[in-house]
């Protein structure tokens, strides 16, 4: 049973327990609250978050209140500037720009979100496995990463575009994700390499925990903040990739629309019918900007301010360094 070893230990635990209790008030609900506080202090990040939520709502509910459908034409009004009937104006064949922009936003947001989730998932599995298992798993997966990094994803997807023309847009999501996970995977691998040397991972290994359980229980949860941040940033990247492809007609195909196809259609008439270009372009830029601001705010909040904590960590390591472990590998042979 719980037998304290001596008076001193009892006193120690009593004192510190009291300390911990007094601290507990702001820690009990834990990290979550702290992160939220840090995040909400960052005004740009909050603005970003609001914009994203708002755009999602707009994009998915527009059909309830929009007088026009995106594939509906108003032959009476072609190339009309924004007015009461057509809030964002109309295009060359009388399509309503508001409905089209919302439909495009919906498509771009959905594709961006799915592709980002998918690619971050792939990245965390490949990166963690490569980093933890090392050896051939590592060599082969990093070689694939190198290979895929050589070819801009845009190039590959556009080459493949004739093959999926007319098929479901989910293929596009898959392709974007497939060519977007590499850099994240590398970062995850790097972090895994450090985590693998962390003593709590070693402890798990020395108690007989199998590799896959260590990855699932200790490695991936400890990278959760990185993965969340990265998934956010990847939404922005995926949206840009999607619109870029659609701009050249390699992505979302007519009759469906995305912000990319709208911008493409409007870009020839920037100076004459500016609303055709600036409205979808504006939505696109604001969306990506909002995602990036939110991602940046998340980084500051989750990664307890990357630079500050890193410096502290370094200092702590320094304090123990020489007393303990060997010098950096490259200095081993310095005297010889």
């Amino acid at each position, binding site marked *: 049973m719980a037998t304290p070893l001596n008076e001193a230990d009892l006193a120690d635990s009593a004192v510190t327990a009291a300390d911990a209790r007094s601290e507990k008030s702001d820690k009990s609900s834990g990290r979550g609250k702290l992160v939220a506080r840090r995040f909400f202090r960052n005004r740009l990040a909050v603005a970003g978050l609001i914009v994203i939520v708002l755009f999602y709502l707009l994009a998915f509910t527009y059909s309830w209140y929009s007088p026009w459908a995106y594939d509906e034409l108003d032959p009476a009004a072609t190339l009309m500037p924004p007015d009461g009937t057509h809030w964002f104006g109309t295009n060359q064949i009388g399509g309503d720009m508001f409905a089209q922009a919302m439909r495009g936003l919906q498509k771009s947001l959905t594709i961006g979100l799915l592709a980002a989730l998918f690619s971050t998932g792939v990245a965390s599995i490949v990166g963690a496995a490569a980093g933890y298992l090392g050896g051939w798993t590592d060599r082969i997966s990093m070689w694939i990463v190198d290979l895929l990094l050589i070819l801009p994803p845009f190039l590959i997807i556009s080459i493949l575009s004739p093959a999926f023309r007319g098929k479901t847009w989910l293929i596009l999501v898959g392709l974007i994700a497939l060519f977007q996970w590499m850099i994240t995977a590398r970062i995850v691998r790097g972090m895994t390499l450090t985590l693998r040397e962390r*003593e709590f991972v070693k*402890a798990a290994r020395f108690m007989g925990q199998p590799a896959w359980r260590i990855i699932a229980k200790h490695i991936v949860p400890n990278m959760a903040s990185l993965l969340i941040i990265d998934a956010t940033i990847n939404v922005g990247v995926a949206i840009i990739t999607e619109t870029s492809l659609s701009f050249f007609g390699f992505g979302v195909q007519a009759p469906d629309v995305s912000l990319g196809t709208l911008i493409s259609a409007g870009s020839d008439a920037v100076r004459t019918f500016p609303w055709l270009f600036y409205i979808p372009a504006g939505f696109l830029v604001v969306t990506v900007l909002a995602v990036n601001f939110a991602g940046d705010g998340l980084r500051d909040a989750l990664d307890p301010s990357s630079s500050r904590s890193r410096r502290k960590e370094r200092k702590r390591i320094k304090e123990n360094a020489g007393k303990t472990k060997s010098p950096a590998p490259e200095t081993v042979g310095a005297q*010889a």
Partner: protein
Amino acid sequence: MSAAPELSAETGKPTGTVLEVSDLDVSFPSESGRVHAVRGLSYQVAAGEVLGIVGESGSGKSVSSLAVMGLLPPQARVSGSIRFQGSELIGKSDTDLSKIRGKKISMVFQDPLSALTPVYTVGAQIAEALRVHAKGSMSKQEANKRAVELLDLVGIPNAAQRAKAFPHEFSGGMRQRAVIAIAIANDPDLIIADEPTTALDVTVQAQVLEVLKTAQEVTGAGIVIITHDLGVVAGFADRLMVMYAGRAVEQGPVETIYAQPRMPYTLGLLGSIPRVDAQEKQPLVPIEGQPPSLVDLPPGCPFSPRCPLAIDACREAEPELLTIAPGNPHAPVDTTHRAACIRTEELARPDAGAAEVYGAEVIEEAPVASVPRAERTTVLDVRELEKHYSVTKGAVLKRKVGDVRAVDGISFDIVEGETLGLVGESGCGKSTTLMEILELAAPSAGSVAVLGKNVAKLGGKDRKAIRRDLQVVFQDPMAALDPRLPIGDVIAEPMVVHGYGKAHIEQRVPELLGLVGLRAEHAERYPAEFSGGQRQRVGIARALALEPKLIVLDEPVSALDVSIQAGVINLLDELKAKLGLSYLFVAHDLSVVRHIADRVAVMYLGKIVEIGDVRTVFEIPQHPYTQALLSAIPIPDPARERERGRIILTGDLPSPANPPSGCRFRTRCFVFAQLSEKDKQKCIDVEPPRESRAEDHDVACHYAKTREVV
């Protein structure tokens, strides 16, 4: 005070007070509020005097010295006064300060590995210090020549050639020498050394302290040496200032403070360090609790929550520094012994030793310890263990440069209820040995047997079973626990892995928490909510979960502050006695090993050079390396420390990729250096075998001879 300073006839330096800090306050903004890192600090440094500042991490000792240099980050708020040679430094512009920095006041930093710019050569960085203050009157060649001279002065061999090397080509000790060379380049009047040896091995620490003494002799500068190690300053400082929670809590001449500490904190600190010169086991004094947060200090003495003598009055107001004994009125600075404590009389009583005040006792040994060694079960048997691996060079562009023989044929065994200390400098292979044992994989050569079972011959299932008997406690309590798991889960993990029932685990976790002095309710908290010492206790509880026979301890206390260290060491001692555990205790700190181990093995470059009963090895060491190691350890006793002869080893640890032929230690051996050419040849040609010199005392040296060094 602001009159022209008098000049000394001998050194041509100003005499009297060089630095006078009064009422210094430094605070920083932080997430949880303003941190008052230094609160009302006053001290003086006389010309040519060495002032030691001692304190644990977070006591404000480094911050106060950075304030003197004017190198605090811009968000720091500084007030009070810092007068250097009569002129006020606070409020001076960066340009004005830069004329004083490096010229009149210079600084040596804690971490030599990052203190030099990686992209410039060492020589160029020293020359820069000269040229920046010469204002164009010194040519590049002259500066370079002088830089080489300085490197030579701080004891870098082949200075002319080494000056062209980049910092990463220098070892830690050499980089610290280079930093000292920069510090003394312009013959300063004050040198501030901020933990200059903390990051270094003990033999290198002895070298660097020697260099600092030389530097002081050459420049005649006043020195402020900041450290957490009461041993380091004992033989070096003239006066001492002990800091706690941003304030000076005791100051005075160094002999007085060590002999008659009057602040309970100082007393506790002195009592919490195990001493390498202890004849028999001394009780270790743990100071319970942890230093207060400097964000929101409650009124009263900040040490009162941890103080065994605290009374109600202590919690009412923070005590001023009170005079204990007047100092020498003719000294240029105030040498009065003062302590910030209202209960100093209590400590003046003759029976007020640290152990008595703090109520610490020597822990009794386990019953198994009285059984003769030969009759006990062997828990771990390591025979001719080897571990070679290839080494790569370069941070990014890795290339293989050779084979490192990290562990090169070592043998030892541990019996039931015994602690074997494995000691040696960084890079000697002690951690590799430990990892080899823990991996339970077949070693490159040799064998490891746990409880009589050779691990190389084990199948997967048996290997897992054997892990129950072999557990580990790591060095860094921060890194050893998964920050995402509550500590209850941390402790339960080994039991889950080994398939214990849920009911059993639920019953066992509180039991284990109690065993290490934590409370059952703690199980739900996360590691971040605990202090370093508590986390180390959680790590120990996890190691105990499967009721192992042998615990491998990898520097279990080196990451902890001294006052916390003692509590963990006592806990380990108690657990051993109570549960009959065996320990393999890897450490670089020989004092701790002296305290806790029954036997000790000294490693040098992958070999065991001396092994035996801890008293034999420490009291009558025979291998020159053991002798040098022991002699390098500072003893927290100014009187003894000043009369001790010290064996200073030359150079650094050679690369294990290319060890010297014959005896590996010969390149740094003082015995070898004095041998005749003929005798030397034996050391060069023949690797000394490990031979028994007495009962349970093996030494690997051709010319082993007892020397008393402690």
